[in-house]
């Protein structure tokens, strides 16, 4: 069975790499991008099943990346990661609350549950 591919885009390298190792131990194929500017080229190259996207990053914000992902890679499932979700903020006319999201610090069981649900909806 093909492993689910997950890309983590987060400028907090220590956080992202540790989360990636934990997901790897749980059978996911993980990739980490810590420079937001690299996110879109890497998405195009790897085409992950799931994108874990931090919202607050230097240079290009997670919101901008999310907007591009919706337009360029609509098949990629996105889970937002944030310390504080602004529920009224919208991306492409859709409130952030409408997306799957986890609040940092991330509870791994909650994240796994959301990823499994996305994977099942994809299958």
């Amino acid at each position, binding site marked *: 069975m093909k492993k689910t591919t997950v890309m983590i885009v987060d400028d*907090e390298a*220590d956080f992202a790499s540790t989360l990636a*190792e*934990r997901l790897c131990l749980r059978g996911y194929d993980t990739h980490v991008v810590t420079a937001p500017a690299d996110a879109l080229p890497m998405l195009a190259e790897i085409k992950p099943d799931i994108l874990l996207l931090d919202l607050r990053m230097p*240079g290009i914000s997670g919101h901008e990346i999310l907007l591009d992902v919706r337009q360029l890679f609509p098949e990629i499932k996105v889970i937002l990661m944030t*310390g504080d979700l602004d529920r009224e903020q919208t991306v492409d006319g859709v409130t952030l609350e409408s997306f799957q999201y986890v609040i*940092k610090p*991330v509870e791994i069981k909650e994240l796994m549950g959301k990823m499994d649900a996305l994977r099942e909806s994809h299958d």
Partner: protein
Amino acid sequence: MIEPLGMSTSGSSMNTDMLWRISGRLTALFVHEINNDLATLREKSGFADDVLAARKISDAEKMKHMGEIIDSCESRLNRAVALVRNFSHIGKNMGSDAVVSDLRGMLTALTPFFEKIARLQLLTVRMAVRQTALVAVRPYPLLCLILALFENHCSHSMSGECLVVETKEDSMTVSLSLFVRQKRESDKESWPWQGTDLSALAGTLGISVIYSEGGDSVSLSFGRS
């Protein structure tokens, strides 16, 4: 040392609103930074559990992983402790009247926030702060004023630039300047100051804000009363 300067007791509601806004911003920055450390610590702790429970990892590898995890946790904890201490220093001064304060200490407390604000806009910061720069003003409004000036400056700088925070003093004055390390001659004429005008807030502290003609630097001057 600079003599104490008076604080207007009839500060306008505009200044109060601005102080609240900047204060909220400072708190949000602090919470965000601490939350980043907590998020990483939770991942490290969970990873330690995962490693210990993993059957495919040898004992030697587990020991190596655990050593790395502990080192990394210690580093994040030290960072969080420094943030809390700095923020506590800021908080303690919130209600203070004008007191003689070490400008360097204030700027040290703000440095992690400067770095974060700058990093979000792909800028870097260089602190060139003298150890002996003493000023006498209400510390908390001054901290807020400095933070607001810094944010203004960042929002009008270009990616890759280095912002310098510099203090200077002579027998009469202490000054604090924010400027871009390498001036952009081409932009100088077309870059008027566009940030929030903080002159009124500074005025209540008895401080003058001096914007350079090209908008590429801003200084606070603490003169003798």
